[in-house]
């Protein structure tokens, strides 16, 4: 299948930054006709951004375009919109479905490209009023489904389909385009059952035989090995390896995915807490958090440690704190210091001296339209009656503005928060400083136990370092047990004592942070559902 002449697609030194934050650096890729390329990497490695560039998505243009060039059949192209990319023969199946629920598979497959018949009305009023040629449509849809090699009912309405069939409908839609030369599949197997996934893999093979090149993005590494001709691994916006699939293995790929170019030996002062008492014990926890389902987590957290929880996106690591803190429906048993914590009640958790810094900073973490003072002091005021003055024998609980200002100023100093003063609105701060406010809010609660979820998401490297150091200091100086959830393994290895990896809604394993990255990488993909 591999041809020696001009490759179908060639990407040369692609660079992209989002507002000064370099997300892609010097990406080079080639893809021949009929070749299947497996693209893998941790979340945030730049896979999706790269595909968005290739597909001409608006978000790329809106954020200042990209550098480098893309050659299609040897000719340079630069797609301004996805329509240009479609016209050039590139199809993409996104993670989110873009199908019309009330329409049949056939109608969705051929949407806006339907074969039409002229009629009296359209003769007068123009082609917008042509009648659809349903016979011809059925034929074409059938051809596309045949090409795909997996049978779906072409007359079935989308909203009645199982989720896997929706995925196949999307693929059939791309295949029904006659000029399709390159198909991008962005984690198509994430929603499929094992059997469907196998069917998808064989349909990828049959596409490849028909001369269609496929870029296949997935976290299931064995799928890549079984179907791809070559594997490209990305990390931190670089291509770290580009090898034929036959010459590599799952463990090698996972090592590339998580390893750093600069060898980082992990946390320097790891504390052995194996003999400490158990601070929190979690038994058979399930959490119904959309996209981050926790299936069955059992975990013991020792007093005074920093426990990291890592894992790939969608595997359930974010569900654990959100479930325990009562923000999403959860079940199971959680005990803090021997006392059971009632689930599904945020207030009870806070009363038990738990605190949570949410990954959704703007949605859950902050009062964007209020002052920093309010943001820092609010939970402590509501939960612990701090920063209040009492009048009439405690009947009137008056906001103590002075105490609130003092505590806010203290954290502004301690965490080096850049702002014009404690009265500034939270909305006006940068991401990193907003994150520090979220930490200050949790610190002001003076908790016994702190969950921190994705504390460094979307903030620049300098701020990252400060946030991590603040956490470490908080743990080491006040002895507070900290559980930090992060997608970035290196960050966890840098400050945690132990790291638990979540995969498929379960704990895949717990290792000391000093273990080599590859170990964690293997755990991450071990139980991916």
């Amino acid at each position: 299948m591999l041809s020696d002449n001009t490759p179908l697609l060639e990407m040369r030194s692609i660079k992209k930054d989002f507002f000064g934050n370099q997300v892609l650096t010097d990406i080079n890729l080639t893809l021949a006709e009929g070749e299947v390329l497996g693209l893998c990497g941790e979340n945030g490695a730049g896979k999706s951004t790269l595909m968005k560039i290739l597909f001409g998505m608006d978000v790329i243009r809106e954020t200042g375009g990209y550098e480098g060039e893309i050659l299609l059949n040897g000719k340079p192209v630069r797609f301004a919109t996805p329509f240009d990319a479609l016209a050039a023969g590139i199809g993409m199946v996104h993670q989110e479905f873009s199908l019309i629920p009330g329409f049949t598979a056939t109608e969705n497959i051929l949407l806006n490209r339907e074969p039409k018949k002229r009629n009296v009305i359209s003769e007068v009023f123009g082609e917008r009023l042509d009648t659809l040629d349903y016979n011809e449509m059925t034929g074409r849809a059938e051809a596309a489904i045949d090409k795909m090699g997996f049978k779906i009912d072409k007359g079935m309405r989308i909203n009645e389909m199982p989720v896997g069939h929706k995925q196949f409908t999307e693929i059939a839609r791309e295949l029904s385009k006659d000029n399709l030369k390159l198909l991008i599949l962005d984690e198509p197997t994430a929603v499929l059952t094992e059997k469907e996934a196998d069917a998808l893999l064989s349909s990828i093979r049959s596409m490849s035989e028909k001369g269609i090149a496929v870029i296949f993005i997935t976290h299931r590494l064995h799928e890549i090995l079984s179907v791809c001709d070559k594997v490209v691994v990305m990390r931190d916006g670089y291509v770290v390896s580009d090898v034929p699939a036959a010459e590599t293995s799952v463990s090698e790929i996972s090592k590339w995915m998580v390893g750093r170019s600069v060898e980082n030996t992990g946390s320097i002062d790891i504390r052995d807490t194996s003999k400490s008492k158990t601070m929190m014990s979690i038994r058979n926890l399930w959490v119904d958090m959309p996209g981050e389902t926790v299936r069955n987590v059992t975990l013991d957290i020792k007093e005074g440690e920093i426990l990291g929880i890592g894992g790939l996106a969608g595997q359930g690591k974010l569900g654990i704190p959100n479930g325990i803190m009562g923000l999403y429906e959860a079940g199971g048993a959680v005990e803090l210091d021997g006392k059971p914590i009632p689930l599904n009640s945020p207030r009870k958790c806070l009363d038990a001296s738990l605190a949570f810094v949410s990954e959704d900073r703007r949605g859950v973490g902050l009062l964007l339209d209020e002052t920093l003072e309010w943001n820092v002091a609010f939970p402590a005021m509501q939960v612990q009656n701090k920063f209040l003055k009492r009048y009439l024998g405690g009947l009137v609980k008056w906001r103590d503005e002075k105490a609130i200002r003092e505590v806010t100023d203290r954290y502004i100093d301690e965490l080096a928060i850049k702002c014009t003063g404690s009265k500034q609105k939270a909305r006006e701060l940068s991401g990193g400083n907003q994150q520090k406010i979220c930490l200050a809010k949790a610190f002001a609660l003076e908790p016994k136990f702190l969950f921190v979820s994705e504390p460094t998401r979307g903030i620049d490297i300098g701020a990252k370092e400060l946030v991590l150091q603040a956490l470490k200091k908080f743990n080491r100086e006040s002895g507070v047990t900290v559980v930090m959830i992060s997608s970035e393994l290196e960050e966890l290895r840098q400050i945690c004592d132990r790291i638990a990896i979540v995969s498929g809604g379960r704990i895949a394993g717990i290792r000391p942070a000093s273990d080599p990255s590859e170990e964690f990488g293997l755990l991450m993909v071990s139980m991916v559902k």
Partner: protein
Amino acid sequence: MNETLVDRNNITLRDRLKNMVASFGLPRLIIAGFLLLLFIAAPFVGADFWTQISNTVNRFSWNAIMVLAMVPMIHSGCGLNFGLPLGIISGLLGATLSIEFGFTGPLSFVMAILIATPFALVLGAAYGWLLNKIKGGEMMIATYVGFSSVSFMCMMWLLLPYHSPTMVWGFAGKGLRTTISLEGFYDKVLANFLQINIGNLSIPTGTLLFFALLAWLMWAFLHTKTGTAMTAVGSNPTFARAAGVNVDRMRLLSVVMSTWLAAIGILVYEQGFGFIQLYMAPFYMALPAVSAILIGGASVNKASIANVIIGTFLFQGIVTMTPTVMNSAIHMDMSEVIRVVASQGMILYALTRKTEGTK
């Protein structure tokens, strides 16, 4: 260190100035300018300046509490209380029952408040429960709650067994009249308290003091722990929930407070106006209150006591001034048109900007 401090202060000052100009808003500027123009023009068209001031202040004193009733629901994120008529009905029940039970003079006013309170609390709680069911569509539902409660009470005013001869229809001997005079009951009870009369200027001190008391209580409430929680619920309900606040209870409380204030508001309005107006009268009471607070600079989810005072003054100023000044100037009845354009236009303007304040 000192330098940075000075720098910081400069920025705050400049920002504050900028923010003040920005937050004052174009519509408020235009309306304030228009009102100023009316005051200046008044003497030239033969209207007495001090009489105009008195009228404006009087109307301000009648309406201010109903505008104040907007504040709690705006704070808790329930939006503008278009369901104000529900509270007004509670007030009307209090007023009519107080008279029916034979109370007269100032006591009838106190009793009206006492009787109206349980109605306001119960109706407000039911209304709040409903609004908690339909988060996101509060203002639409509120409008219809107001409208339908008015229509329902149109029947009830006829059917309820009222007997007081001052209130029922003369011939039939049953069913309440559309307008009931308060003479001998609580006509001007507040207004006459410490009233100031200098020439043509007359200030209803008592009513203003009563409003000031309620406004102060509202201001104080917003500074308490519960008030803070209410504001946070309006600002970001998810944040409030994550901080252990019972969001639904805060919203319910705000609706009850708003409904009760509306009930008190209509009683104060009646004592100034001198009449109880039943049947379709409450139908039109929500919109002037809504537009007044918006003119005052409130948005759909931010409001302060200052917004209430400024807004009520501007709105009522326009309403009182336009008939006299405009009519004498152009000999045409433009006042109603201008009032409608100003009030509805203001609501429209505020609703189109709804997304700005919210997250």
